[in-house]
């Protein structure tokens, strides 16, 4: 009887142990967005959230977007002491990184990212990668292992009708300007425009010469 009781007790302890581990809620990062339907020119706000029982000293995230439909405006972190490191951006990818000189607790909003809608589109935002960072023994930033990335995608429905542009209200904290390099955005259009102008100018000049000689 004693052996059976001990076995039951061991079984119960094992079960409780499993439940306890499960209840610790592992480090998680996920993306949320409130409204998903927008008009052209309106501001899309998405929020990067995290739940972590480990103190962190930095985080990074990369959000893929369609540059034909959306233009990134900025990102900000409400976590006190998290300083923005606005590194060079790529078109189509919001690349945000923050670091703090002291360990911070994060349970909730890590960062808010704003986009402006450009035209009517069915598009989505995808959290391509994200990581929480700690400072390792050598003093280097290192990813916190075992971070689970939850919701990654936010589908957006953008109407071509022009809406009222929202005021870019920013939270406190360090702001990241997220515009990709200008050269990548407008250079080809500028060249095409110049070629069209030159073409029309040449045709016009040719016509003028022909008519002038004819007259």
């Amino acid at each position: 009887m004693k052996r059976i009781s001990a076995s039951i007790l061991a079984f119960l302890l094992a079960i409780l142990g499993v439940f306890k581990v499960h209840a610790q809620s592992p480090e998680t990062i996920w993306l949320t967005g409130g409204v998903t339907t927008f008009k052209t020119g309106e501001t899309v706000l998405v929020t990067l959230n995290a739940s972590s029982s480990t103190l962190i000293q930095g985080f990074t995230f990369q959000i893929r977007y369609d540059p034909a439909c959306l233009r990134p405006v900025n990102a900000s972190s409400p976590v006190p002491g998290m300083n923005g490191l606005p590194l060079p951006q790529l078109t189509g990818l919001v690349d945000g990184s923050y670091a703090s000189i002291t360990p911070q607790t994060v349970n909730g909003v890590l960062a808010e990212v704003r986009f402006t809608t450009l035209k009517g589109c069915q598009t989505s935002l995808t959290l391509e990668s994200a990581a929480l960072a700690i400072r390792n023994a050598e003093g280097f930033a290192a990813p916190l292992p075992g971070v689970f990335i939850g919701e990654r995608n936010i589908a957006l429905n953008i109407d071509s009708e022009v809406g009222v542009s929202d005021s870019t209200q920013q939270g406190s904290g360090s702001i990241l300007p997220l515009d990709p390099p200008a050269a990548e955005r407008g250079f080809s259009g500028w060249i095409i425009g110049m070629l069209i102008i030159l073409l029309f100018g040449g045709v016009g000049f040719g016509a003028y010469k022909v008519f002038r000689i004819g007259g």
Partner: protein
Amino acid sequence: MKPKRLIQIFVVIMLVLSTLGGSQPALASSNSSAHSDAMVINRNLNLWDATYFGFVNSSIHEKWHFDFTESHNFVVTVSPITGGFIPLLILLDVNGIEIARGTGSLTSTQPAGSYSIQVQPESGGGFYLLTLREVVQSLPAVSTVVSPSSVNVGESAVATVSLNNVPAEGYTSAEFTCTYDASLVEVSNILVANLFGADPATAIQDPQNGSFIVAIAGSNGNKATTSGVVFTFNVKALQAGQTVIECKVRVNNGNNILTDLPSIGSSLTINGVAPTLTPIASPTPTGPTPVESPTSTLPPVESPTPTITVPPLESPTPTLTFTPVASPTSTPLPNGTLTGQVIASKPVTVGLYDAGNLLITSATANPDGTFSLTAPAGTYTVRATASGFLSAQGSAILTGGSTTTKPTIALLAGDIDNNNVIDQFDAMTIGMSYNTAVPAAADLNNDGIINVLDLEILAQNYRDTGPSVWE
């Protein structure tokens, strides 16, 4: 009497009346900051560099009104004509709130708006000459302008930080240290403008204990070459009082040395009138987990004072480590020499590896990056490494009795954690170690401190991967 004489008398009478304020309405004033029982005569100040006459004593003060359509850095000078008279100047905003004061002269920078200078005796009294002059800055400087200059408790002002008289060669980076009275105001929403070109690299040490640091570096070769706004921030009034808000700057003109520039601050006056409280716009958590209070669990802030711990430099003299290769034949191959130059701001190690990736020999390059390696004739892989830099790698064929020279190569800085890619974690290491000296690999320019200069270097090579190809 001749008409000419009549005109002369008329002009003299008008001048006398002017000094007594005869053409201006005289109004008793009792504003809060410059309160006195004296009668205050309102006068207008319309011209730069013009000289105005005035008269004050213990019972008559004069208030000169002027308007700015844009921000100006100016000096008002009052020169007494009467002996024993020491004038006191009080700069007031449109509501009559004191902004600044000075004896004999007053220098200030104010944004567009209506202002007045009240002149009253600090001692004595009598006639004086008043002049308003623009301060022409011929030297580079940083200015901080707060607009409006007077707010009520709970209201906010915007501070604009500008670099003035930027030299033609420009600045590749700058580090601003801003100070304010944290018991009176709260700083938020630091927004960096594009004076350093599009897409600058920025590190912001958030406001703590009345100061914050904004470090900005131009990326892709961009730099600040014109005067203009560098960044702005919001200042929210917490309680009544007056605080000077000033941002000092250290700039780098490309020589990797931070140089101090003169700075001009601004004063913000906070009136005790508390308007209806508006709740602070806090970020609304949209996730399933509520936001915890950020202040309750914060560990103590590390000391901002950098503790410079420069690791001992390796010997500049190349130390050769020669390991003879086990030759398959009994006759050893004659030695060949490999020379070249590797550019980096840190000590560089150059090594020769055989086909099995076994280190044959290595040497620390001289301070100028030149190196010389000797090994038996053969084909090797040559690899150059430096702490915090992407390594460079290529092939080298050594011929017995002769010297082979590799082309000069510059290592790319930023691979702080030595994982062969310059990425976000390298940047975060700089952010986590700001104003300290460790880890030494993050001190990319080897100046003993991790700061904006290192971030600037990293930003230039961001996303590069190694090893670099050494032709």
